[in-house]
Each structure stands twice: as structure tokens, then as C-alpha cells.
């Protein structure tokens, strides 16, 4: 779409709704608010059991691999950048640029998932931490596994959007569809920001 059209589109307001906010965006923000509470309880549960670890609980510092987790964190941050650029591109009507950014986001998302699969496998087989043999394992795998599931759903959504864009139905006027997906992806990123600090880094103090 031409750059002229860009100047006439307002992607942040929708005067046809009673709130002035596009309905899809409002729906996504409401969902993310509820997901905040979901992750809030999971993180709280992990922290409670870390406050009073039962006897025989493994030492997280002997289990965690900070360099790998740091790399995963960096990858997820970069995927957020590419997602923001994808939204920026479609808001300007640049579908090709959006596709490239989506593809890069998918790639980074898959790297993150690969790192998590490797981490889980390493913890189970080499460190002996399973979901059922300690409270640390139960809360850790439940929390990070749920986050990983969110990433997987995001990757599937991104992939579907990537292929859907070839039908010609993803245009500047439908930018809200990409933006809603972007909100979800960034949310996954901010949850990881909290998990990285609370679950991993604080253990080393």
C-alpha cells in the first residue's frame, strides 16, 4: 500500500467503538491482564516453596545453567524487537518487510524453545531434577513449562499469520490482527523477564 495511505490511518484509535479502542486490541489486553494473574500464581507458588525448601531439596545453583538461560533471554528480547518491527511494517503497508520480520521472530522463538527443550533434558538426565522428585522440580517445570507452552502457541500463531499473509488478506487495514498477535508475543517476553530474575538470578545471591 502506498505511503499516502499510511498518513490517513490511525492505528491507535477506532472512533466506531464506544471506548475508541479497536475491539480486538481491547480483547487482547483483557486476556493479557487475566494471564498476568495466571502467571502471578505460578511465580508465587515457586517463590513460596523456595522460601522454605524442604530437606533434601536440590540446590538450584547446582542445577541451573545461567549462560544458556542468558542466551535464551537475549534471543527472546531480539524476537520482541522483530515482532515490533513486523507490526511497524504492516502499519505502513509493507507486507514483504512484515513477512521477513515474522519469519525472524519465528526463528528466534524456535531457538528459545530448542534451548528450553535442551535445558529440561539436561536437568532431567544429567542433574536428576524431575517434575515429581522434588518440590523445586514441580514448581520449576510447571512455571517454565507453562511459559514454554505460551511461546509454542505464539510460534504457531506467527507461522499461521506468515502463511496467511500470502493470501493477500493481511494489509494495512488489517494491521490490528498482527498487532494483537504482537501484544501476545511481547507479553510472553515480559513474563520471561520476571521469570529470569525471580527464578534464576535471585538464586545466585
Amino acid at each position, binding site marked *: 500500500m502506498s505511503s499516502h495511505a499510511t*498518513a490517513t490511518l490511525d492505528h491507535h484509535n477506532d472512533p466506531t467503538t464506544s471506548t*475508541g479502542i479497536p475491539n480486538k486490541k481491547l480483547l487482547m489486553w483483557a486476556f493479557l491482564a487475566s494471564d498476568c494473574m495466571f502467571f502471578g500464581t505460578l511465580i508465587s507458588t515457586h517463590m513460596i516453596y523456595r522460601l522454605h525448601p524442604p530437606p533434601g531439596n536440590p540446590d538450584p545453583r547446582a542445577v541451573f545453567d545461567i549462560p544458556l538461560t542468558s542466551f535464551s533471554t537475549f534471543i527472546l528480547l531480539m524476537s520482541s*524487537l522483530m515482532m515490533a518491527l513486523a507490526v511497524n511494517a504492516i502499519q505502513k503497508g509493507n507486507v514483504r518487510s512484515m513477512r521477513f520480520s515474522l519469519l525472524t521472530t519465528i526463528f528466534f522463538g524456535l531457538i528459545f524453545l530448542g534451548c528450553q527443550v535442551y535445558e529440561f533434558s539436561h536437568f532431567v538426565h544429567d542433574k536428576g531434577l524431575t517434575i515429581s522428585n522434588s518440590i523445586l522440580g514441580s514448581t520449576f517445570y510447571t512455571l517454565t513449562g507453562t511459559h514454554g507452552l505460551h511461546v509454542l502457541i505464539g510460534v504457531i500463531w506467527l507461522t499461521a499469520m506468515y502463511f496467511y499473509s500470502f493470501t493477500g488478506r493481511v494489509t494495512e487495514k488489517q494491521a490490528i490482527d498482527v498487532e494483537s498477535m504482537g501484544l501476545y508475543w511481547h507479553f510472553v517476553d515480559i513474563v520471561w523477564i520476571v521469570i529470569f530474575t525471580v527464578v534464576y538470578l535471585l538464586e545466585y545471591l
Partner: protein
Amino acid sequence: MSQATAPAHPGEHHAEESKFWVYVQIAMLLAVITGVEIVAIGLPFSKWLLVTSLVILSVVKFLFVIFYFMHLRWDKLFCTILFFIGLVLAGGTAWALMLLFGVEDSKPLTYEEAASIAAPADVRFIT
């Protein structure tokens, strides 16, 4: 859905154009903050100082992502309020639970401690 209306503020088109570099700069800043966090855990400072620093750095990263990458800075205030309702409820729940389980009486007893407490005659420990 996006509407064919004029931008709400003068110069908004220019702001849209310059967002690309804003995003890139923020991503670089987030990467640097993450690096600082990783280095910080190895520094020989007091625990409370490091915990406070890590929490502040995480909050800064969190706010940059939601206000810039998630566009809350440019969207209507209601989106921010809606999200912060969930955030405050989640944070409040976490805070309350940490207080509740942080007190001395919430510490789980070891088997020896439990066994040393005089139990009523009709209570038996199952081994």
C-alpha cells in the same frame, strides 16, 4: 479495525516513521540491561542492594516493553488501566502470599521437630 481517520496528534506520521529506530535502540538497551543483571549477581555487594538492583532493572525492562513495544505509550489510557488491573491483582497476590508464608510459623516442620512435639494420645504419626 484501523480506521481511515486523521492522526490524533500533529506530527504523528513523523513519529510512526521514527519508531523503527526507537525500537532498535530500546532492544539494544534491554540487551545491555540483561548483561548488567548477569554481571551484577557476581559482584561482592550486600544482598539487599543486589536484590533491589535486580528488581529495579527488571521493572525498567518490563516498562520499556509494555510502553514501547506494546504501544501503551501511544494507545488510549484505558488499555494501560486494564492491563495494570491484572498486574496489580497478580502482584498483590504474590506480595500477600510471600508475607503469609514468610512468617516463622509458616515454616514446615521437619519430621524430628514434629515428633518432638507432645501429641494428643489419639494422634499417631503414620510412618
